[in-house]
Every structure is written in structure tokens, then in C-alpha cells.
């Protein structure tokens, strides 16, 4: 986590604001835009937001079943 620290990072608040968009984009296999790449990088280094994202994906997949 320390070595992966970047000079500029998204905060959790900003990341959480993009998770619904990221989940839909990934599910639709659209290429990630720059903003979502930053969200993705935040998820690599933030277990809380990564847990949120996994749970959101799980909920969306549950609804699709």
C-alpha cells in the first residue's frame, strides 16, 4: 500500500461517486475513460471502496439473474 501511493489520488468520496458508473461501464465492456481509470487505481489501494464495489457488482448481478 505504501509503495503504491501516488502523489495525487482520488479520495474515497470521489471514488464512491463513480462506482455506479464504473460497475455499469465494466458490465457493458465499454473501454474505461481516464476518470474511471483513476477510480480503478483507487480501488487497488483502498480496501473499503474495493469492498463496496464488489458488493455493488454482486447486487447488480443478483438482479440480472
Amino acid at each position, binding site marked *: *500500500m*505504501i*509503495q503504491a*501511493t501516488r*502523489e495525487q*489520488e482520488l*479520495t*474515497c*468520496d470521489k471514488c*464512491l*461517486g*463513480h*462506482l*455506479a*458508473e464504473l*460497475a*455499469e461501464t465494466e458490465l457493458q465492456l465499454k473501454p474505461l475513460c481516464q476518470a474511471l481509470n483513476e477510480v480503478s487505481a483507487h480501488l487497488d489501494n*483502498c*480496501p*473499503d471502496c474495493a*469492498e*463496496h464495489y464488489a*458488493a*455493488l457488482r*454482486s*447486487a*447488480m*448481478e*443478483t*438482479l*440480472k439473474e
Partner: protein
Amino acid sequence: MNSSLPVRDAETWRRELSNPGPSQDQALNELRRLLLAGLSGGFGRHGNAFLEDIVQEAIVKILKHLNDFSGKSRFTTWAMSIAVRTALSELRHKRWGQISLEQCAEETGVDAAARDVVDPGADPAQQTAEQNLFAVLHHLIQTVLTPKQRVAILSEVAGMPMEEIAAKLESNLNATYKLLHDARKRLKAGLESHSYTR
């Protein structure tokens, strides 16, 4: 999405949820049903009462923040994200709410982490290298971080969620993230000055 639910666009959701009356009641019922169904997969093991409470709380937040919906995702995905966050916050608070930052940092600080991470089965040279790294890290934590950063980052390493750290610091998520990000940058620079790079 579930084919048994009517297809509504975001504007319809927002309009119907905003205006009291039969349309609002119907939209609320459909939203409740959708959130319950979505949460049942990942959170179902916590029981129906938990799910009902979470959905109720999430709906209050959704109604309060209707104007914050930006339209970058479907309305229902946005709403589900709020419900997921509500569920995770509740579970995290149950798990960590009674543990102080100081207690968490002391019991599972970098020394404890070193004991867990240094592989007793590794060859002696590797064990020595790992022990040296933890010694440097321990020194940096004591010398380059503020007391607040120190206790927060040790709690984070121990697994305490950021929102719980923020609550215990009587701060918010944004400020706590910045506090921890600055701490990580200081530690990273310190490790690099000791020739530890990735």
C-alpha cells in the same frame, strides 16, 4: 435488471419519488423491492430484519439526495450503490465501533504485522531482509508521522475501515483520506531514502 420490474427512466424515478401521492407510493414500493432483491445476494446471511432496516435507511438517504444524482449511471445502480454503502457502514460499525484507534494501533501495529508477515519458513537471508524492512518502517512511523497520522495508519493497517477511523477522529471521509494519503507519502519517501523501492 429484473424483468418483473417496470422500466423507468431516471427522470421518471426522480419525478415520482419527489411528489407525494399514489405514484410516489408505487415508486417507493418498487425501489424497496429492487434494493431488497439486490442486497439479498451479498448480505442475505445477515437476515431479513437487517435487510429491511438497511433498505429503509437507504431509501431515506436516496430521497434526501435525489438532486445529487448526476445521470452518469442508471438511477437504480446509483440507488443500489447507496444501499450497499449503508449496509457496509452498518456492518463495519458493528465490527469496529467499540474499538478505539489507540487500542487498535497498539494491538495490531507494525510490530504485530511484522510477526505475521515475516515468513518463518523463508530462508534466513530473506527473513533478515524482511525484519530489516519492518525495523525501518517502525522507525519511520515513529519519526515522520504526526501522532494522529500514526494512530490512523496503524489502525488502517489493522483493517479498520476508513469511515470508522474518520468517525473516531471526529472528522469526515475526505479529510481522513487526505490524512492517510499524506502519511503514506511520507512513509514512501522515507522508505525510498533507505533505498527501499518496489
